[in-house]
């Protein structure tokens, strides 16, 4: 199988590695995010994880999109109804969009608050938005609501993936695990 296979059985190794690494990071981030906003005790260590993890997800998402543009992903099986095919494509691009947008909005939001965007002790990122209450309020609301949208999309994505793995058994799940395609 060449790197430019027109209909490969699997996502390439880079795509698979990035997918599973980012799956763990993003699900952890969603829980860290809602946890640090509500908790009266855990916010300090959760937010110290949240900022560098967000930037890590942003960098990984850029690598992943670059890889996705350069390598044809496996086609969905012809047996899949058109609406499911469309839902799959729409949700994948929504996921890509949110994994780039959320860290950028978070970074801009802290900039608008005038807060140091702290990665580690003594290491801060430069501000990328003007310090302004209106800009902050808009970005803070967007960061929260888009995170809920990302969580909902992840739940749908996992449910659909398990549907392919356990009910349809059509090789779609195997395309991301690297298992052999049936038939």
């Amino acid at each position, binding site marked *: 199988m060449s790197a430019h296979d027109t209909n490969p059985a699997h996502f390439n190794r880079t795509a698979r590695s990035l997918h599973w690494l980012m799956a763990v990071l993003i699900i952890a981030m969603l829980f860290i995010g*809602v*946890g*640090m906003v509500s908790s*009266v005790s855990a*916010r300090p260590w959760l937010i110290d994880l949240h900022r560098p993890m967000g930037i890590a997800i942003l960098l990984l998402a850029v690598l992943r999109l670059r890889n996705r543009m350069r390598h044809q992903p496996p086609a969905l099986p012809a047996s899949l109804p058109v609406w499911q095919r469309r839902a799959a494509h729409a949700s994948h691009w929504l996921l890509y969009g949110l994994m780039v947008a959320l860290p950028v909005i978070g970074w801009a939001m802290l900039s608008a608050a005038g807060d140091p965007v*702290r990665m580690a002790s003594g290491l801060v990122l430069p501000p990328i938005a003007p310090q302004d209450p209106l800009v902050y309020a808009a970005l803070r609301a967007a960061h929260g609501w888009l995170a809920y949208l990302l969580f909902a999309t992840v739940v749908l994505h*996992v449910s659909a993936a398990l549907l392919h793995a356990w009910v349809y058994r059509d090789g779609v799940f195997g395309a991301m695990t690297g298992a052999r395609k049936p038939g």
Partner: protein
Amino acid sequence: MNYPDEPLPGSDPGPDPSPERLRRALALAGIGAIALGAVGAFAWTAGWLGADRLTAGQVVDAVEANGGPHPGFRRAHAKGVCITGTFTGSADGRALSAAEAFSGETLPVLGRFSIGGGDPHGSDASARVRSLALQLGGRGEPQWRMAMNSFPFLAVATPQAFHQQTLASRPDPATGKADPVAMEAFLADHPRARAFQQWAKAAPWSDSWANTEYNSVNAFRFVDADGGERFVRWSMQPRTPFRELDAAERERADAGFLAADLDQRLQSGPLHWDMVVTLAAPGDVVEDPSVPWPDARDQVVVGTLTLLHAEPQSTGACRDINFDPLVLPHGVAASGDPILAARSATYAQSFNRRQRELALGQGNAATTPEATP
């Protein structure tokens, strides 16, 4: 012998034999359970499920309910003024912490003087607590934010106790005063809150923000260049001599006398405070801000704060800063004090709410300078 559901050899298996249907049903149920479980875990983490845990939002809700709505203003210490100045650290400070503030270079300072309470129009003469918040370092730099108070120790040791205190102090809508029975019940369970009340009654009031001492109250860790760590508390000790404002003078004082006094003093020159660090001795409790350390502890002057200029908070730079005491530079770290974590969490809530109100145009009173009578 064949089981009823098993297709006979050579016969048509049929479109959907039962074991396959059962397997699919189980798979669908499993997927549904995983999705529901994920949503439930998320809702629990967000504090939407499970009423037994105190959330940062509930703490701020209770504070808001006591003070009445003042959109656009801070939920606590709502009344104050913005200040600017400088901070210069000493060699003794450098020996204790690698923070840039102690490098010997002069850092720009933004800050805010305030009085305790949730009323942005409250009278200065009735506010027992005065506060000084500072931000050392500029935009895009690792900053050091401090939020200090004139009391030497806190009334409570945990966010849960703070919340109970807020609920016990809730004014009765009929009388405008807290229910004395509820407050007595709270004090009976919290002896340090009673000690705080005694401090409030006995300690003399200063007649100016300029001659008041401001304390970190919470303990922090100083980390020196070699990685050596010490638990510390600090105070800003005024160089302006203390002068008491007695009860009779408080009766006569103007509602805004603190800001007027500050303006007058700054017109004749800068105001100075020494930053004095108290070092914990082995065995001192570092996680309980309601217990002061003994007076005999070693103290070190680590720097000088100079204030040059004051302006109304409605238009000053301090309005849009969240003085979160856990915005710390390299060389300073948090202690395990649970109040410190709770301050960080609840200040963020207050900041989000008031900035949202400003964005929605509900906080005009907070952005318009008050007419001077």
